[in-house]
C-alpha cells in the first residue's frame, strides 16, 4: 500500500525541530512516526501524520521547505524475523535496494509498519502485496 510522507528541510541547529513540531501542534496535526536523516549542516525530517495535507500546509506556512511523497508501506508481524522475512529478504532476492526506511508500531495490535523507499518501488509494491 501507499502512505503519504511529509519531509521537511531543517538546519542542524537547536530549535529547528521545535519549530517544526510547534507548527504541527498549532494545526493540531498528530504525528504517527518521525525519522531524521542528518549531516553536520542539515537534516531531512520525514514524518507520517494523521492529516498529511494539513500538516504540509502548516509547515509551508511556517516558512519551511517541505514535500509530500507517496511512500511504499507494508505491515509486518511483530514477531522475530518479521522484518527480515516480510520485507528485506524478498526485496534482496529480487535485487531491489532499500534507499531508506523506518518502522513503527501500528495501531493494529501485534503489527508493525514499515515505510520505505526502494530502487524500484513499483516492483517492490507488487512483491510486498503478495505477502
Amino acid at each position, binding site marked *: 500500500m501507499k502512505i503519504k*510522507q511529509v*519531509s521537511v*528541510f*531543517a*538546519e542542524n*541547529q537547536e530549535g*529547528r525541530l521545535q519549530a517544526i513540531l510547534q507548527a504541527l501542534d498549532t494545526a493540531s496535526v498528530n504525528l504517527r512516526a518521525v525519522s531524521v*536523516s542528518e*549531516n553536520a*549542516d*542539515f537534516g*531531512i525530517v*520525514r514524518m507520517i501524520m494523521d492529516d498529511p495535507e494539513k500538516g504540509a500546509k502548516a509547515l509551508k506556512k511556517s*516558512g*519551511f*521547505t*517541505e*514535500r509530500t*511523497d507517496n511512500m511504499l508501506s507494508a505491515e509486518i508481524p511483530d514477531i522475530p524475523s518479521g522484518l527480515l522475512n516480510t520485507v528485506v529478504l524478498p526485496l534482496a532476492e529480487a535485487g531491489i535496494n532499500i*534507499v*531508506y526506511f523506518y518502522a513503527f508500531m501500528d495501531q493494529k495490535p501485534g503489527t508493525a509498519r514499515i515505510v520505505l*523507499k526502494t530502487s524500484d518501488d513499483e516492483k517492490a509494491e507488487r512483491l510486498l502485496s503478495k505477502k
Partner: protein
Amino acid sequence: MIRSPKTETMSRTDLESFQLEQLKKTVSYVFERVPFYKNALKKNGVVPEDIKTLKDLARLPFTSKLDFRDNYPLGLTCVPRDEIVRVHSSSGTTGKPVIAPYTQKDVDVWAELIARSLACAGMTREDVLQNAYGYGLFTGGLGLHYGAERLGATVVPASTGNTKRQLMLLQDLGTTAISCTPSYALIMHETAIEMGIDIKKTALRLGILGAEPWSENMRIDIENKLGITALGIYGLTEIVGPGVAVECPHKTGMHIWEDNFLVEIIDPATGIQLPYGQEGELVITTINKEAQPILRFRTKDLTSLNIETCGCGRTMVRMSRITGRSDDMIRVRGVSVFPSQIESVLLTVEGIEPQYMIVVDRQNAFSSDELEVWVEVSEGIFSDEMTKMSALQTTLQRELDSVLGIKARIKLVEPKKLARTEGKAKRVVDRSELPKT
C-alpha cells in the same frame, strides 16, 4: 634603500612636468595606434594636442575591465605581434581573461620597477627571496622573479603550493624574504607548527605580500606569528602586474611609482576627481608603456592618496590600504570572483533559485573553508533522500571549482534565512557580520 634616488625623491614640480610630457606622448601614441582610444577620445572631444596640463587628464576617457573584454585579446595593443616578447593574463574566471602584452622594453621597465619596489621594502642583493607567487600566466610569479634578479638577490622560484617543501627550502636555503599572498603567509605558519618548525627562528625577516586585500590586523598577526616585517605590494594585470606601488618599512601607505603611473581618486558614482586624502576609486594611467598603454583604468579598488613626503624621503604619492571595492568583487587566494559569476554557476543546476549568500573570512581567509556559499533550499531542489541532497552539495562545489577555479564550501540553508533587501541584495558578507545563531 632608495634604488633610484633622483627619481624617487624628485621634487613634485619636476615630477609633474616629467609626467605631463609622458602623458602627452602616451595620448598621441594610443590615439594613432588603437582605434578604441581614437574613438573614445573623439567622443570626449579631445585630440592629443589638447593635453596642456596634468589637469587635462580628467578629460580623457576611462578604460574599464569590460573594454578589455570587448577588445580581447589584443585589440588595445599598440605594437605589431613580433615586438611582443611575452603575454600574461588575469585569472579570467569566466569569459575571456585580460591579456597583458609586453615588449622587451616593457619587460625591462617592469623588472626595474619591481627591483625598485623590493629595495623600497628593504631588500638588497644579500637577500634570498622565496617567491611563492604562482608562476605562469599570473603576473605575480614571473614579475617578482625578474625584479628580484635585477636587484641581484637570490631567487628561489618556489611558486605556490607544496607548503611542506616550501618550509624545507626556507630553512635549508636561509630564505630571508618571501613573496606571496597574505593568506598564504598564514598557511605557511600553520603548516610550520604542524611540522614542529618555528619560523621565528629561521632567517626569514621580510614578507612582500599582495594580490588580495588584507587588513592592518592581519599584518600584525602575520608579523607576530612569523617574526617578520610584512609589507604590501600592489599591482594589476591591466596595468603591468605587481610593482605599481609598494610599502616602505615606515608602513604609511604604498609608494606609487609616479614616473610610470598617473593616479587619480574618483567618486565611483560620478567619475569626478576627488582631492588628495579623500577616499574613492583608484584610477591609473600608464605613461611609460609600449605594448599596451592604458588611459584612466578604473581599478574599482577603494583607497585614498597621501601627497606628503614620506619619512623615507620619497616624494611620490602613497596610497592607503585598499579598503574595499566599488563593485562587489571578492578575491579568493588571488582569484577574482564576482558574485554574479557564482550565481551563474549555481543557476546551471536545475531547480536552484538565485537565493544565495557568499560568506568570506577576511581575517583568516586561508583554510579550504575560506569561502562558503550559502544556498537556500527551495522546493525545486529539496529531496527526501539524503544521498540526493549530498550529491547536490558536491555538484555545486565541483562546478564552482571547475568553472571558477575556486574552492568553496556549499552550505544548504533554510529558505528566507538570507536577508532580503530592497533592490540589490547583499551577496557578500564577512563572517564577523553574521548574526549569531
